[in-house]
């Protein structure tokens, strides 16, 4: 039974390597960070933190399900903090009961009230606006409203990613918060009728399709423009330079802004150091790293803004509270199905 022994040996070796790979248990001083943000984007800020304090940060990145994982792990969860993009993700964690509030004068002072939870459950780190990329050579408009995107003058000219993508869900949820569901449904139908292609791809593909002449206007997040224009790849720079940005506003309001933010885990094994990391991430130096690296707006009003970000034009965030936006996300997602937006 040579094979049997081989299998046994393989299994034995595998077991040993798990044990070796098992991370240190909770006693260490490390901060354990679960993140829905790709770690490459936050690593420089984390490295700066480790350098300043000597506290190591371990990360676990996943696109979905981290809050579920924290709930399953319960009291034994190693997670201290959860970083997420989009208010919906933060709200999900809070709804699942895996968070605890944080009260800190330093955080309250640094972050404007609109961008943190009144109860201290979530705090924003950066801001990103959902804007319009328009063809430099084919579009003359200099300002737009979100409502106006359903205007038939854009028939066959707009590109957008899936209506079920969280970025769009939040935009549509804000629309519901402003105008109610019935009006939003009409608007979504109008927007759908204006699409040049079926919703798909990511925000960058919008710029790419503008360059290729598929559409004249694409909905996308602000920072992608910076990423494309400063990309190593020549193609991406071409896409970024084919477009001009317009910060649309709601009629009588401002531009739809979403956040990246974080929550403290309910069973954080290392709460004190995690709180230190939170405060560090809203320091001027960390805020500048975010702005410089990923072209987001710093949440701290006084923090220095990267030149590329300045070139997107002045940002006038809508005053709607993000908790209100989060409340309407489910209705927004349901409407997207109802009007067959992605079909």
């Amino acid at each position, binding site marked *: 039974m040579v094979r049997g022994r081989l299998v046994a040996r393989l*299994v034995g070796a595998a077991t040993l390597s798990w044990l070796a790979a098992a991370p240190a248990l909770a006693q260490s001083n490390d901060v354990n960070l679960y993140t829905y943000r790709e770690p490459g984007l936050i690593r420089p800020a984390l490295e700066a933190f480790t350098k300043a304090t000597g506290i190591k940060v371990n990360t676990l990145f996943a696109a*979905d399900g981290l809050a579920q994982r924290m709930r*399953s792990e319960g009291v034994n969860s190693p997670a201290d903090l959860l970083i997420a993009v989009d208010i*919906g993700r933060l709200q999900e964690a809070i709804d699942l009961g895996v968070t605890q509030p944080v009260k800190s004068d330093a955080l309250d002072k640094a972050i404007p009230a609109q961008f943190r939870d009144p109860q201290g459950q979530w705090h924003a780190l950066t801001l990103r606006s959902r804007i319009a990329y328009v063809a430099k050579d084919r579009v003359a408009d200099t300002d737009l409203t979100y409502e106006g995107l359903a205007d038939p003058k854009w028939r066959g000219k707009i590109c957008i990613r899936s209506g079920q993508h969280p970025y769009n869900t939040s935009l549509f949820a804000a629309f519901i918060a402003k105008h109610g569901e019935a009006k939003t449904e009409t608007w979504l139908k109008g927007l759908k009728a204006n699409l040049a292609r079926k919703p798909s791809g990511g925000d960058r*593909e919008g710029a790419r*399709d503008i360059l290729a002449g598929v559409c004249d206007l694409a909905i996308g997040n602000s920072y992608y423009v910076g990423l494309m224009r400063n990309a190593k790849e020549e193609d991406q720079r071409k896409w970024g330079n084919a477009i001009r940005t317009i910060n649309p506003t709601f009629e009588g309001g401002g531009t739809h802004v979403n956040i990246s933010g974080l929550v403290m885990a309910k069973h954080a094994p290392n709460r004190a150091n995690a709180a230190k990391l939170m405060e560090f991430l809203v320091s001027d130096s960390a805020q500048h790293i975010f702005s410089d690296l990923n072209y987001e707006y710093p949440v701290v009003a006084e923090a220095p803004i990267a030149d590329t970000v300045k070139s997107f034009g002045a940002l006038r965030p809508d005053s709607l509270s993000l908790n209100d936006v989060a409340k309407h996300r*489910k209705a927004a997602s349901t409407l997207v199905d109802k009007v067959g937006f992605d079909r």
Partner: protein
Amino acid sequence: MHSGALARVGAWLHQDRAALTATALVAAIIVAPVAGLLAIAGSAQDNVWPHVVHVVLPNAITDTALLLLGVGLVVTVTGVVTAWLVATCRFPGQRLFDWALLMPLAMPTYIVAYCYVDLLDAFGPVQSTFRHLFGFASRRDYWFPEVRSLYGGIFVMGLVLYPYVYLCARAVFLMQSAAVLDVARTLGASRRAAFFRIAVPLARPAIAVGVALALMETLNDIGASEYLGVQSLSVAVYATWVNRGSLAGAAQIACVMLLIVVALILLERFGRRRQRYAGSARTHDRGSPVQLTGTRAWAAFAACLAPLALGFLVPASFLAREAVHLIANNGFDPEFFVLIRHSMTLAGSAAAIACALGFMLAHAEQHARGHALGAMVRLTGLGYALPGTVLAIGAMAPLVAFDNVIDAAMRNLFGVPTGLLIMGSGAAVIYAYVVRFLAVATGTVETGFHKISPHLEMAARTLGRTRIGALATVELPLLRPAVATAALLVFVDAMKELPATLLLRPLDFETLSTSVYGYAARGSFEQGAVAALAIVVAGFLPVVWLARTSRIPLPQDMTAPSGFTSGSH
């Protein structure tokens, strides 16, 4: 009479109790995530079911059905035709195609989707050249197929998944007794008629296995579907969960998917009902291959080259180009070797465990009398059809419960807390792989069992071997190719797996596929080309080996005469 029957039942129970218990245990462990999922589905606080039934399901089921139909057609035609050509004909490149046609198996579907979108999109090289050649100024001036569509999804998945059918069909065509075909020809059937009326119907059970595997892979795919804008059930699960915050609703849709899987499994069972052809693998039985010449030879060449090129060569060279470009610009990151080690350890462990379990299940089923055991074996295949993320969510609760029991016991007995032993190490990922890919292992080993005559074991038992003895000295050596095939399929699949790996891996632990995903999440998929290529290469070598071992014929005269074994027993 009566007491005799009772005694027989008693003896049977005694004999089969071990197998039954072991099978039940494995089934329970494997089905735990599905049970977890059902529990979540039943825990719905807000009722999303009406929305799901009226809005989500009609569209998602239509798209999923079309996708399955399209992929099923592509993989069947591609797999069977290429397998037939390679197994029974000689033409230029035939020896190369013999193994190379398996290569797309090494390509993760989502990576192929990324590659084709890059290549075929409005701004990709193909359309740019097209515009340049014909002088079009804009994308609006001409028609071009849209790769981000249902058809794009069928194209991508069909090309990556046809090797499942090819592998199964080829094995059968190689073993089909030439005598059968010769008789058909002697009786006046053309080669075409021999193919359609004899060879394919005889190969139907094997083809059904391959198609079922390919369709289940299609059903659980989320990466490619989402990227290509196919509104499949997997995508609906995702939207319901992430955007409507309803994990329960998502779990309910996932249960609908499970029903489809059960239907597929039944279909596969139905396809191979009463079909067991053991034996007839004696090498001297094989007919000599037909030498193709002229146009026919080139047509065969083209028919084999097309799927190989589209499913492997094009995306692989795209990746290779990007990888060379990256290494030239940024140098080589030594962190890369850590990724390789992680991926290999996880996939290797999963392959070993899945094979051991798959062998056990197939063996138990082979010797089972009654339906209970067979039903349990089928149950263990359910994990194959769940989207990885859903599987991972379902697996978490049982895993943590297990961890907590161990933790509590260790605290009480030794005062040592063990924390999350399984979730905190890579073991949770391996568990997910085994749950996910056990069906592949069991199915492959089963096919192997069907090829050897049960009379062999009976003979060994008559000659005084114990059941274990017969297993070790007779059946296992004969099944080595099947077991090796199973191990490799699971290994390659596990190397490619993404969603469950992402969600169940420990802190600070990256594999090749999570690293590729990280770059893709940042919108710069090209930067993950080196890791993506490594997944392909890691899959490449086993696949070549797979192709070689899977043609090894059974040792001569170890098989019982055919005809004795048809029908179930």
